[in-house]
């Protein structure tokens, strides 16, 4: 019946007490780990190395200084996934390591790529520009390598310019746009006005939004390109009402601003009282700190402990890439690129990834099929696919390029 002094209140003393206890737990846990590690040593050991090729990304200038992109955006997720793989691997005699391979922004010399591909590591997670990714995938030395792309959202890389040795864990623009369109149909907000930024990612997302609108019967009543010569920090409240005044009446204002430049100033400043969606407001994302169901709170807290910040979309896509490889190694007891690739593209592969449904890869273009949360900054609003959007094989295939419309032909032949 003794009550420990730690358990009586939520005072600062109690917090220190908990910290002390946790510290003891950590030390004794390490000791036990050594024992259990030795006990398992009889299993055939398998050391798995993954290269994380991380190209610097040229950030376009943005109006706001808030929310800078963290230095370890993406990579931090791969670190957590490697730790997860190692915890599992410890029971099977498998160990995982991640090597960070930095690349400068811009064009990458073929010799640089060949040097990376010549290191004898055939499992690569790519956090690169579309051009550099494609260039690496097409090097002769890459033919026997498996590249899991955890950055690019390009639709063309999953379609006409797909590559047999490249899988994708970041959802495409088309998947995100379809998710948003399904939500809008569900809400019957089917009359859109649209504002489109001038950078290439903005244009790509806008293309995907137009295609989704057509696919799901949504009318884009008017569209305006964003002007770059306005200082929104000072005058959003005076400029934006005028900028949006000429739009015909609409249900929702959709914004394509993938470079995070101007869209944050739009909500609350529109001429008509309408919700904002797309890159801002009601947003379709692969991941957000607001995702908490299906055990997601555990991943969020694990990530926060490891990285000291909240988990961003690129972190989650990189976590998926490294976990998918880990799952394939665990299930097949092989770390060779052909075995991992074959397993990932097979019906046997499924990954629990805190989104309420199992994730797998589309075997016609190598893209991961996954639910897309529709979020606002502080909560999940809905998760696509929305109820009622049916599919003959998987409801997840209502998002993005489906098999009948795919122009990817590289997956008919065997890969690496």
């Amino acid at each position, binding site marked *: 019946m003794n009550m420990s002094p730690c358990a009586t209140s939520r005072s600062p003393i109690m917090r220190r007490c908990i910290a002390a206890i946790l510290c003891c737990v950590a030390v004794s846990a390490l000791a*036990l780990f050594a024992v259990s590690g030795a006990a398992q040593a009889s299993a055939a050991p398998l050391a798995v190395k993954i290269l994380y090729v991380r190209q610097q990304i040229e950030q376009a200038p943005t109006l706001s200084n808030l929310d800078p992109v963290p230095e370890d955006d993406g990579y931090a997720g791969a670190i957590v996934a490697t730790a997860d793989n190692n915890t599992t691997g410890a029971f099977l005699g498998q160990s995982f390591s991640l090597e960070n391979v930095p690349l400068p922004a811009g064009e990458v010399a073929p010799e640089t790529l060949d040097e990376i591909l010549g290191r004898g590591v055939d499992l690569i997670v790519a956090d690169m520009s579309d051009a550099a990714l494609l260039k690496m995938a097409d090097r002769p030395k890459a033919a026997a390598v498996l590249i899991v792309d955890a950055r690019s959202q390009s639709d063309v890389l999953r379609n006409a310019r797909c590559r047999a040795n490249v899988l994708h864990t970041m959802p495409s623009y088309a998947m995100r746009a379809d998710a948003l369109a399904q939500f809008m149909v569900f809400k019957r907000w089917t009359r859109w006005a649209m504002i489109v930024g001038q950078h290439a990612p903005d244009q790509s997302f806008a293309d995907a939004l137009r295609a989704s609108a057509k696919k799901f019967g949504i009318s884009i009543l008017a569209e305006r390109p964003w002007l770059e010569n306005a200082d929104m920090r000072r005058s959003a409240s005076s400029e934006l009402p005028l900028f949006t005044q000429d739009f015909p009446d609409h249900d929702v204002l959709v914004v394509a601003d993938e470079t995070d430049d101007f869209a944050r100033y739009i909500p609350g400043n529109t001429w008509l009282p309408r919700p904002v969606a797309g890159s801002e407001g009601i947003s379709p994302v692969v991941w957000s700190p607001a995702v908490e169901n299906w*055990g997601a709170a555990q991943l969020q807290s694990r990530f926060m402990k490891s990285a000291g910040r909240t988990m961003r979309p690129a972190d989650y896509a990189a976590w998926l890439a490294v976990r998918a490889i880990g799952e394939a190694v665990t299930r097949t007891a092989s770390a060779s690129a052909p075995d991992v690739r074959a397993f990932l593209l097979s019906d046997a592969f499924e990954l629990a990834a805190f989104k309420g449904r199992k994730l797998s890869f589309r075997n016609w273009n190598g893209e991961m099929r996954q639910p897309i949360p529709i979020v606002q900054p502080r909560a999940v609003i809905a998760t696509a696919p929305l109820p009622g959007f049916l599919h003959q094989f998987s409801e997840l295939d209502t998002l993005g390029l489906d098999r009948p419309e795919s122009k990817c032909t590289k997956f008919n032949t065997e890969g690496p």
Partner: protein
Amino acid sequence: MRIVFLAVLAGFVGAQDAAAGQLWVSNEKDNTVSVVDTQALTVVATYPVGLRPRGITFSHDFKELYLCASDDDQIDVLDPASGLTIRRLTSGEDPEQFALHPNDTDLYIANEDDALATVMNVKTGEVLAEINVGVEPEGMAVSPDGTIAVVTSETTNMVHWIDTAKKQIFANTLVGQRPRHAEFSHDGKQLWVSSEVGGQVQVLDVATQSLIKELHFAIGGVSADLIQPVGIRLTADGSMAFVALGPANHVAVVDTKSFAIKRYILVGARVWHLEFTDNEKMIFSVNGASGDVTAIDVARLEAVKSIKVGRYPWGAAYHP
């Protein structure tokens, strides 16, 4: 000081034991337990407990109720007669589920955030052992003879088999994606394991830790990947298993001899855990998203009534 909220006091309250015939339900997002009179099928009391209550079980003599207060990193011990918290045990980080050894003393606790299983003397609060397990340990069970404890790890996708005498892992079995719950058969020969995201229940042979049977479920009009098994309960006579199917909103009834699915019973939304009451005449499903429990008549295999409890009820324990 703690404030006790007493809701409607209805039906018979046993003269000898105030808690007789009650189902205690942990409400994850209300920080309370709801007490359901299983005869009157009404909530008779609601008691405040620690933060984010999830795993819930009685001591074998029913004199104490143990509750994982996950966000307080402790186990609350309640007096079922008064509903008051009589002790709190520091459990290691984020306790989610636990199982009480037949010796009525050793509590095996899954520390979800720490990839750790903690064995604690629940009478004294002494930590007897900490065992490294896979990522996000959740399901926890102790064999009827007390020799084996198992823990399932949700992201590692394994069952870890622990020798309770040595308090060490002696085997690991890979199972389906996101294993949530493990349940020994009453004869101790089988272990039933549910995999929430994999969508299957695997029946393992305890002697060899190998697969006997993999069960799959199909309900007309429900998308296959929304069939997500979680809670499992097996009847004492070894004839039937009940499996809660999560967002499929049904409980499956399995013939444990033929492994055929006998029936799907519609209950509330996002059903996770199950508990027998009244000598297995009834089984209650705990429905998280609809915030209620559904009483199922075991002989007729029909839902009788759903009873509103707190927000996001997680699990339940019965006091006979």
